[in-house]
């Protein structure tokens, strides 16, 4: 069970790229690591590091101004591609608490929610404005899940979010526990399952 989250407060970094796929967020070779700890070291690995291990100057999150950023403002289709949940774990271990983008890959979005990495969808124009602000000066956002607002300077932006995502963040529920309250319905389905739906090794090698 994860701790409830109501407020996310932190610095925003602009990642002005579209179609950031999960292979870039964490390359496949690091999926062999068993566990979540330390994955932040490999987050955006090929974008962050040169082959000799030195930091790449052309990558925005390497800019000293954004080293302490905990919010990423990205282009559309963030997190498309592979279903690897390690991408979420890597971002979180790297210190990211929220991603704002016009759209997200479906599987990444669900994975993020399950781990309470907040993904906020905003219209493209608003995302671009936030990116520009974050480029110009330090942009500190205060995201409130109870009010569904993003506050910065003297401004307030509203955002929409699924009720179930909000509930999850505010209450920090154990989903399996909740599902098991429906155990009678699960059992009923299983009892009515025809035998052909259940895989039994009936033959050996097909012709």
């Amino acid at each position, binding site marked *: 069970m994860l701790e409830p989250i109501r407020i996310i407060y932190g610095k925003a970094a602009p990642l002005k790229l579209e179609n950031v796929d999960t292979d*870039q967020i964490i390359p496949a070779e690091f999926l062999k690591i068993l566990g979540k700890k330390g994955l932040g070291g490999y987050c955006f690995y090929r974008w962050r590091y040169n082959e000799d291990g030195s930091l790449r100057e052309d990558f925005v999150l390497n800019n000293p101004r954004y080293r302490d950023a905990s919010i990423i403002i990205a282009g559309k289709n963030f997190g*498309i*591609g*592979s279903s690897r949940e390690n991408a979420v774990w890597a971002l979180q271990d790297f210190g990211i608490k929220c991603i704002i983008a016009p759209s997200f890959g479906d*599987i990444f979005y669900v994975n993020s929610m399950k781990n309470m990495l907040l993904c906020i969808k905003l219209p493209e124009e608003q995302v671009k404005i936030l990116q520009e602000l974050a480029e110009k000066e330090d942009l500190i956002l205060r995201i409130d899940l109870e009010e569904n607002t993003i506050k910065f300077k003297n401004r307030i932006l509203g955002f929409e979010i*699924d009720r179930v995502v909000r509930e999850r963040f505010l209450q920090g529920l154990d989903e399996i526990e909740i599902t098991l309250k429906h155990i009678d319905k699960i059992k009923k389905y299983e009892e009515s399952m025809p035998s*052909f739906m259940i895989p039994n090794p009936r033959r050996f*090698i097909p012709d």
Partner: protein
Amino acid sequence: MAGKSIFDKIWELHTLYEREDGETLIYIDRHLTHEVTSFMAFEGLREKNRRVRRPDLTFAVIDHNVPTTDRLKPIRDESSAKQIAALEKNARDFGLTLFDLYSPYQGIVHVIGPELGLTIPGITLVCGDSHTSTHGALGALALGIGTSEGEHVLATQTLWLRKPKKMLISLEGKLSENVTAKDVILWVIRNIGTGGGIGHIIEYDGPVVREMHVEERMTLCNMAIEGGARTAIISPDEKVFDYVKGRPYAPSDDEWGQALEYWRSIVSDLDAEYHKIVRFHLDKLEPQVTWGTNPAMTVGVTEEVPGPREFDDPEEKQAIERALNYMGLQPGIKITDIDVDVVFIGSCTNGRLTDLVDAARVVLGRRVAHNVRAIVVPGSQLVKRSAERLGLHRIFIDAGFEWRNPGCSMCIAMNEDRLRPGERCASTSNRNFENRQGPGGRTHLVSPIMAAAAAVYGRFIDVRELDLPSREEVLEHARAY
């Protein structure tokens, strides 16, 4: 009242409970799992002292990490060996069937599901892998999921889902000679974009789909995720029923009549409604080749690599420049002037017997170009053995291809099979993302026929111009070899 699509019907039959906000508890009939994305799910169960609710509906296989060279030698990569050992232990501890490194049924999870009869029409199926959409080709509702969702399915055999929107993609006309399912799906993604399918389930239909072999339909469904779709599905027909019949885990003869009755009842109604309908006329479709770093960056084989000037949007311009730079390509060069260093034939997209037969149609009587390294990685042990029984392997080996053991291999480069920095690969896999096939590697996604031709000619060629033997002829040759 409007009719229902196959997706509506399977969804309704598997709905256990629906919250007022639309969150729906869906029963999962089949759970396939592999060594890479399952570890933390099993750890989660252990932590809470939970068991796997239905070990009889859960199957594990080792595919992502496996070396494709000699299986009897120990695995050199220590972390791969550890990850494989972890799944072996988890399968043992939780009582699951595991197709391990030495199983005659081992292979890529999306190849073995259908070929073993674990995947059948009308079921819900999940796997911790985005290419799970492959199984939709048989008329299953197949979803790629994350590790947390995987743990939830292990513990409860259910998943909380919000019903996606429905997009019908109708594939019309008739494909030209040597133009295949891979070219069709690349064309579709090129047109709808990498995010075009987000929030949707794609249903394919139309004469081109009906004409296709079931394995070709798997290629079509496999890459739906590259268009952002939640998954893809095709209403099953006689071809699918014939394909399923007699497979090791398929319904028995006694159950067959009942199964058929159910499967025929779940096909899409003629008046089913969709949120979006897209039609593609494919009479003139040419072989497709990706030139950039996502699968929507695709052009036809007779076209040229585009340049940033052709785009107005500054961000698009920037993305094109970045992709060209990574790929080491100049705008305006012809696709047929691009030389390749490596050819990879395999993966859950194109690692099935039909794909190997197609590639062999080109390779028969030809040789791999001297400066090209070419490998064939069959999708499973069954595919490999079937190919060897037919004599196909000799066609590849004689031509200078390496003939490997099954696994994900150079599609994801988690084992030793990878590109060296700067190497250019004609690949039958599904992702041309930066560094996907190895750090600095450059991927061009193509069909097995196009890949085989690239191996022989050392560059891309328009395979419509080749006079190739038919599938039957190539098999006859192989037998007589």
